[in-house]
């Protein structure tokens, strides 16, 4: 970047943040293309990058249209996992009794393969958006709970005592101490959750849906239309990255004080 002050640390960081992953991506695509030519991999096994790009360009409106149902299902599933996950974590962290009843079952429920029970949701809730949302929710829920529980539990008991000794009510102390303290952990859970919610939505689309990126993938693999399948994969990855980035932005806004965000604080002050 040819700016008046090219040595500033901020512009350097911006460089690193965007340019390096992009360079790596270019490297991967080149390696992909080269290995297809070198090892003569047939197109029905792995399509060439150029073919994928061609499909992306020719089918763009259709692919984009199919993105929306997936995005919808992902976002709703993710929001529900945050909406339920955080309160459940509060209960688990706040009460030994709740923890002893709920936590083991929650862990147990995680060992049930969601992909295997996804058809059940179709039986229960039909072919609409609901089974996809539920599938996204189920995948996104657990990481939120686990991280949030850890966050709520790692509050220094002396800090809580201090606030309680000042006659703070349970709710006041929670809002002033416990919740902000747990936010960094909650956000790391949310970031895992949002990427898993994408997977959940696609799984939902695999088993019973006639729209969405998952449906496109399912259909194209059935006809050995691998370029389309890969194009769908690219879009899916993009969706995951964008949603992750949004959560990351929100995190920076909500917890600018945290160790992981400190560089920004220095520049701001």
């Amino acid at each position, binding site marked *: 970047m040819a700016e008046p002050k090219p040595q500033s640390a901020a512009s350097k960081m911006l460089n690193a943040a965007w340019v390096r992953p992009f360079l790596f991506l270019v490297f991967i695509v080149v390696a992909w293309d080269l290995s297809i030519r070198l090892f003569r991999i047939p197109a029905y096994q792995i399509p060439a990058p150029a073919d994928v790009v061609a499909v992306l360009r020719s089918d763009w409106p259709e692919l984009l249209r199919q993105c929306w149902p997936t995005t919808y299902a992902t976002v709703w599933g993710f929001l529900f996992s945050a909406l339920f996950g955080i309160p459940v974590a509060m209960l688990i962290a706040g009460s030994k009794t709740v923890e002893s009843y709920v936590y083991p079952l929650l862990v147990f429920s995680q060992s049930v393969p969601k992909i295997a029970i996804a058809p059940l949701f179709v039986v229960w809730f039909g072919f609409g958006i609901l089974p996809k949302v539920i599938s996204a929710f189920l995948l996104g829920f657990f990481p939120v709970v686990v991280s949030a529980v850890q966050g709520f539990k790692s509050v*220094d008991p*002396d*800090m809580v*005592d*201090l*606030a*309680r*000794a*000042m*006659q*703070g009510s349970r709710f*006041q*102390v929670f809002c*002033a*101490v416990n919740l*902000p*303290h747990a936010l960094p952990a909650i956000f790391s859970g949310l970031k895992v959750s949002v990427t898993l919610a994408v997977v959940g939505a696609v799984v939902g689309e695999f088993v019973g849906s006639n729209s969405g990126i998952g449906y496109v993938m399912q259909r194209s693999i059935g006809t050995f239309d691998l370029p389309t399948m890969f194009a769908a994969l690219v879009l899916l990855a993009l969706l995951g990255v964008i949603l992750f980035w949004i959560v990351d932005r929100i995190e920076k806004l909500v*917890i600018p*004080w*945290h*160790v992981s965000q*400190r560089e920004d*604080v220095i520049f701001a002050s």
Partner: protein
Amino acid sequence: MKAASIVSETVQPAAHLRLVSDRAGDTSGITLSGVSKTYRTRDGDVPSLRPLDFHIDDGEFFVVVGPSGCGKSTLLKLISGLLPPTSGEVLVEGEKVTAPHGNVGIVFQNALLLPWRNVLGNVMLPIDMKRLPRQQYLDRARSLLNLVGLEGFEKKLPWQLSGGMQQRASICRALVHDPRIMLMDEPFGALDALTRERMNVELMRIQRETRKTVLLITHSIPEAVFLADRVLVMTERPGAIAAIYDVPLPRPRSLDVMADPAFTELVQRIRKHFFSQGSLD
């Protein structure tokens, strides 16, 4: 009183050693009568404090020394109302303590500043917890920060401060709601020796200016003698009173007082309690 009998068993009272006098009828300060604490755990009852009787005068600098795990911190929680005693009662300013009463400011070994609040916001925490009018106390918070030499740091976040500065801020937080009592649990234990001495001098000045009743817990005998009007020596767990000593040194004190024969003699005398019992850790 109970303490007196224990003292006579362990050491011969010297001329400057006044035994605890009875202050019946005096409602100011802190009074503990027959206070004991036993923790219920899964492995049975763990006694933490044996019945304690003592009184801390209003405006007194009272220091407790004792070995690790002798229930010093429990004592602090009992007085602040965070824990109910198993037996006996705690009176603060003549009122029986049954719940957190808010008439205390607490300073722990770690400054425990909230990382998402700036220094001023941290100092204001008790005001928020007690739902006192914020505007009214902002000036007080600022003048306290001036008192401890943190003017200009109001908007800084805790991690931008050194350990000593953080602890100063937490002292301001303990004073902002103008409590009668300051409870300090090894407040300078995490600081380096040089900072620690400076903080001791400063704490003494703050106490002189604010006239608070201070109950300070420490592992350091010289620190105890340097700061205190009276020093309470505790026994090993379950904690009990081994002795209470008057510190005959005049105020205001400077660090030079540590060379005073009366100072070294008292330090020696207190140290003997731990040599006969074991180490101070």
